[in-house]
């Protein structure tokens, strides 16, 4: 109920148009309810041979029809606009909120889940707010008006005619309540079929190599059978309830005809009234069914609302105070003091980190998988906040400075270079949309990207990404480096930035990186000695702690973990080709 009220809150800005559209809807319903009366009147006129009365009644009926047309058009226009406005608001509120939430939130959420909230859930809320509410009020009102008209005409007949209505509403609601879980289970099982098919197809080489087609077919057949069985459950419900909902009004109609017909015979009522009643019973069956439908729509909207609010209620944990000062001037002095990082009460990812890095130095972070390298650099840009301890840049605790000013001084080049569907130039100028073409090209040159970019069909104006040209892993990487360079950051963070290019390209990129690192503090999250060689100093990490730091030679002598890494690095971690596309292609073998 609380969710329901909160959902209604989205309508608040549109109170006035909403009231108008309700008013128009009610008036239109009034017209609809008037029509059977006029039909009855006309039939009476025919029966009593009042030729002159027929035409006025028919004209009145036409008039009611035309009036209803006008009212409904108005209602639909207003309601449609409100519905679209609500959709706009919902989407915008949701999106803005997502942009405010801390990054850790996205690590814990699947993108697909968020997508389905922003699309499917939003849809069901919008339908309910935009159309459902009006349907409910319209249906309820039709039933009410029709009931009133019938009671006035003939109370006894009215009670008989209305008797099935409560049963119908109950049946309709019960049907949608019972069928929904059954349907969901069907969907669930179809999901299993999909997952099974996906697995067999992705793993077809293994299946074939081990000649296990029969086994996979049996598995598949089994999951398909499960769908069939559950579908039958749903089918049975449908087969039972749908005809029942058609039958109930007929029962009422039969009673009305019998009682009303006998009354006509005995002269207690007119045949016109009987006709009007007939028309009312036919009229009622629609709204009654809609009422049931709207109720289940409301349930769905509330469920969606709950999922939506779950996210909207999440306070952004990482916002800088509105009056926070900008990051003070400086050259990129970095200091981590007793920093511990823990995600959601799990084992700490980083424990008691103390690290001082002087401006302009290049530090390589080295260690086994999950030793905390990536988390450490994430702290610098305040993608996460430390659970304990603090992070200082140029003397300022980064929690106390303006977030945007902090992040504009730090640039990332991550392992998987994410580029947006935009032109090459647009991507390079991502952090500085006002950059000139010269600046863009100069950044691209430094990142060793200029040559291949000019060879693209439309040079810097080539659209890349999902709806454009697909670049190779190495090309993407170099554009990401150019993007970081153009941002002219105080601190540069390279997260294993050269892992997906072939040896020749790697050499080129290294040249570019050396250039780029000049004059800024650089952190390299490295897995290979070849990248480590760019650094002035190496920090060895293991299980969230700093184990040792020093130069390559020093560490080789005194740090066994580093020795092991270095040895493996020299021997084996040099991969001969690392083109992403090739990797995907080979993965199929």
């Amino acid at each position, binding site marked *: 109920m609380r969710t329901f009220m909160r959902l209604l809150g989205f309508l608040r800005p549109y109170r006035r148009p909403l009231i108008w559209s309700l008013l128009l809807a009610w008036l239109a319903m009034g017209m609809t309810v008037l029509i059977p009366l006029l*039909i009855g009147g006309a039939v009476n006129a*025919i029966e009593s041979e009042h030729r002159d009365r027929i035409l006025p009644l028919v004209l009145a*009926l*036409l008039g009611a029809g035309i009036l*209803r*047309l006008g009212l*409904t058009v108005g209602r639909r*226009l207003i309601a449609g606009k409100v*519905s679209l406005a609500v959709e706009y608001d919902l*989407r915008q509120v949701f*999106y803005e909120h997502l*942009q405010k939430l801390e*990054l850790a939130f996205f690590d814990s959420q*699947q*993108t*697909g889940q968020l*997508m389905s909230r922003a*699309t*499917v859930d939003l849809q069901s809320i919008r339908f309910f707010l935009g*159309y459902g509410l009006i349907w409910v009020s319209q249906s309820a009102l039709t039933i009410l008006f029709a009931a009133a008209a019938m009671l006035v005409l003939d109370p006894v007949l009215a009670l008989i005619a209305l008797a099935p209505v409560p049963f119908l509403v109950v049946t309709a609601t019960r049907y949608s309540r019972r069928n929904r879980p059954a349907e969901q289970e069907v969907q669930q099982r*179809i999901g299993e079929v999909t997952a099974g*098919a*996906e697995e067999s197809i992705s793993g*077809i080489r*293994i299946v074939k*190599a*081990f000649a296990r087609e029969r086994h996979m077919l049996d598995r598949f057949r089994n999951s398909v059978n499960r*769908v*069939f069985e559950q579908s*039958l459950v749903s*089918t*049975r419900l*449908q*087969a039972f309830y749908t*005809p029942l909902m*058609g*039958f109930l009004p007929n029962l009422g*109609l*039969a009673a009305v*005809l*019998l009682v009303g017909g006998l009354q006509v*015979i005995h002269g207690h009522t007119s*045949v016109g009234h*009987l*006709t009007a009643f007939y028309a009312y019973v*036919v009229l009622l069956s629609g709204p009654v069914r809609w009422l049931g439908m709207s109720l289940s729509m409301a349930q769905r909207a509330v469920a969606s609302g709950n999922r939506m609010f779950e996210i909207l209620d999440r306070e952004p944990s990482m916002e800088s105070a509105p009056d926070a000062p900008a990051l003070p001037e400086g050259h990129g002095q970095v200091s981590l003091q007793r920093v511990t990082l823990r995600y959601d009460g799990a084992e700490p990812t980083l424990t008691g980190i103390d690290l001082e890095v002087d401006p302009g130095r290049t530090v390589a972070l080295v260690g*086994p*998988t999950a030793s905390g390298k990536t988390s450490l650099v994430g702290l610098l*840009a305040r993608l996460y906040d430390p659970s304990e301890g603090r992070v200082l840049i140029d003397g300022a605790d980064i929690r106390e400075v303006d977030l945007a000013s902090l992040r504009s001084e730090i*640039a*990332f080049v991550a392992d998987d270079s*994410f580029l947006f569907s935009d032109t090459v130039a647009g991507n390079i100028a991502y952090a500085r949309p006002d950059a000139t073409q010269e600046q863009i090209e100069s950044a691209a040159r430094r990142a060793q990207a200029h040559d291949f970019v000019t060879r693209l069909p439309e040079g810097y104006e080539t659209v890349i990404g999902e709806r454009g040209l697909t670049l190779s892993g190495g090309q993407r990487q170099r554009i990401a480096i150019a993007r970081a360079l153009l941002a002219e950051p105080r601190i540069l963070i390279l997260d294993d930035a050269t892992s997906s290019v072939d040896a020749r390209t790697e050499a080129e990129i290294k040249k570019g990186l050396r250039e780029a690192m000049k004059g800024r503090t650089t952190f390299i999250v490295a897995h290979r000695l*070849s990248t480590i060689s760019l650094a002035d100093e190496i920090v060895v990490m293991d299980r969230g702690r700093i184990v040792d730091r020093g130069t390559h030679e020093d560490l080789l002598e005194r740090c066994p973990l580093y020795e092991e*890494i270095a040895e493996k690095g020299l021997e*084996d971690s040099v991969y001969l080709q690392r*083109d992403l596309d090739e990797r995907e292609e*080979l*993965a*199929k*073998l």
Partner: protein
Amino acid sequence: MSDRDRKLREAEERAQEEALIAEEREEETYQAPDSRFRAVLMLFGSLWRLIRGEDNRWRKVRWLFSLLGPYRRQVILMFVALILATGATLAPPFLVGKAVQAALNGDSTALELIIGGFLLAALVGWGTSYLQTYLVGWVGERALQDLRIRIFTHLQEMSIGFFTRNRPGVLISRITNDVDALDQLISTGVVTLFSSTLTLVGVVVIMLVADVQLALVVFLTLPLLAIASLVFRIVAASAYRITRERIAEVTAYLQESLSGVRVVRSFAQEQRHVERMGELNELNRQANLKTVYLNASYFPAVELLSAIGTAVILLYGGYQALDLATESARNAQIGIVVAFVGYLSTFFDPIQQLSNLYTTYQQGMAALDKIFDLLDTEPDMVDKPDAIDPGRLRGEIEMDGVWFSYGLDKSAGLKRSSGLIERGPDEEEDGAAWALEDVSIHVPAGETLALVGETGAGKSTFAKLVSRFYDPQRGRVLVDGHDLRDLSSTCLRSQLGIVPQEGFLFSGTVRENIAFGRPDASDEEIEAAADAIGAGDFIRRMQNGFETEVGERGVSLSAGQRQLIAFARALLAEPRILILDEATSNVDVRTERTIELGLERLLEGRTAIVIAHRLSTIRNAGRIAVLENGLIVESGTHDELIAAAGRYAELYGTWAELAAA
């Protein structure tokens, strides 16, 4: 790309798809997209062309109906129920008219009889609708189930090359989405087509029989409906397409900014994205506003039409009645007027439903085409009738003047017309660019051949030809002296092991995965294989040991662990020939060492073709082949090649230098 990323991406794609489907449903349910009348005409037009065989779909549709063959009895029963149910829905207005007539005549016996008939009709309607709905559901689902299994079976018969050329997502959607679209066509579509047509024809016939003149006058209002629909159609044509495009843009943008959230944050560009989203959102609103205007005028206009129809009946029918001489004739006429008013309300329903059907028909037919593209693709590598089965292979491999080009490969992918996009297997695909050119090499039984070279040099093509994913255009690939084309595929496959780069696991336990190739293996054999590879330790340390569920595609394990289990699986199957693609993903130092040892154990005593990425593997290989642009430029042992100071020595120098840098 890691498994997690891939799963995420797939989940995203699904969510997006669902959103689009929901969007389409919205149109059907809430805004009913197309012109009623025209759609009905187009539907029948298409059906006519279909039956006369003017498009080539008749064969497919016949095939589709043949799926119902086994359930002939249920189908016949369903149609009987359908006809009865339709009849039952047609009866009420007629009976109401009769009841009114009886009431006016003061004939209570007749009235009671008519009410009895009314109740009977209602009961028959109830019973037959139940039967019909149930049977439609039953037959439809059964047929779909059969269809899914048939497609799946067909897919499994296809060669590996086929799967390389077609995206898994596309193939899967043949089993899921397209079958669902057919479901709509078979169950909802066929029933609606018959019941609505029957109802429509029934209403028209009953009205004509009851009173030709009045019926014809009522039908005069229909051209108005046609005109209204035509106008709507012209105006609405593009409006709906635009809304679909707009919402797709919004969804795509949302998708992108969610996947790229790290980049957005680290460059502090949130505000810019919010603004852009606002723009797209607004465009979407504008586009939808147009459809709101359209709907706002069209649907109420149809409502008005039914009011006009009622007016015409009352006026014309009323005057007719008054012109009649006798009381009883007049009463009968009043009954007819009431019945007509009742029929008018059932008249628009079938038109509405039939017009919705046109969309279902189009979607279903498109799905049918796609499914047929798949089913019509013959399995491309079928054994010759006189294929040889030499029994146990020694494992000697020879390539004899092999030329291969993807462009010339006859076993092409699915047709592009059906929306399937062929995946270019390699960059060299266009034209007759040779992926392998006159390659000849001999690998003695039991020896390891390491393939070395740059991207696109032909290493994976080489491995694919040995696995017989493709046949060469010229030259021969021989195993133990038999041309692969003459060898029985069961013989080859049962003795050829393939270890892919990403150790692919199936959902199930670790034990099931290791025993995948030999389900009858004993527990001791399974554990021995795991131990031999060096995977036994970590498996036993897991919560349920060998009974641990690995999750979908083995997500609950690390890349290194998956790799080791894949090794154990291959070892247990004891292949004579092993095709191995070394993983290039980063694993930690300790796992790396285990993998290296496991690899050595796996390669022992069998012929192996290794697409090598580790220097140690290359150095340990009995023979190294350096590929460049589809040519073998050098081959020999490590020492020989270094001594020759050729391409390999040069490459090796670069690597060593890089490693030392």
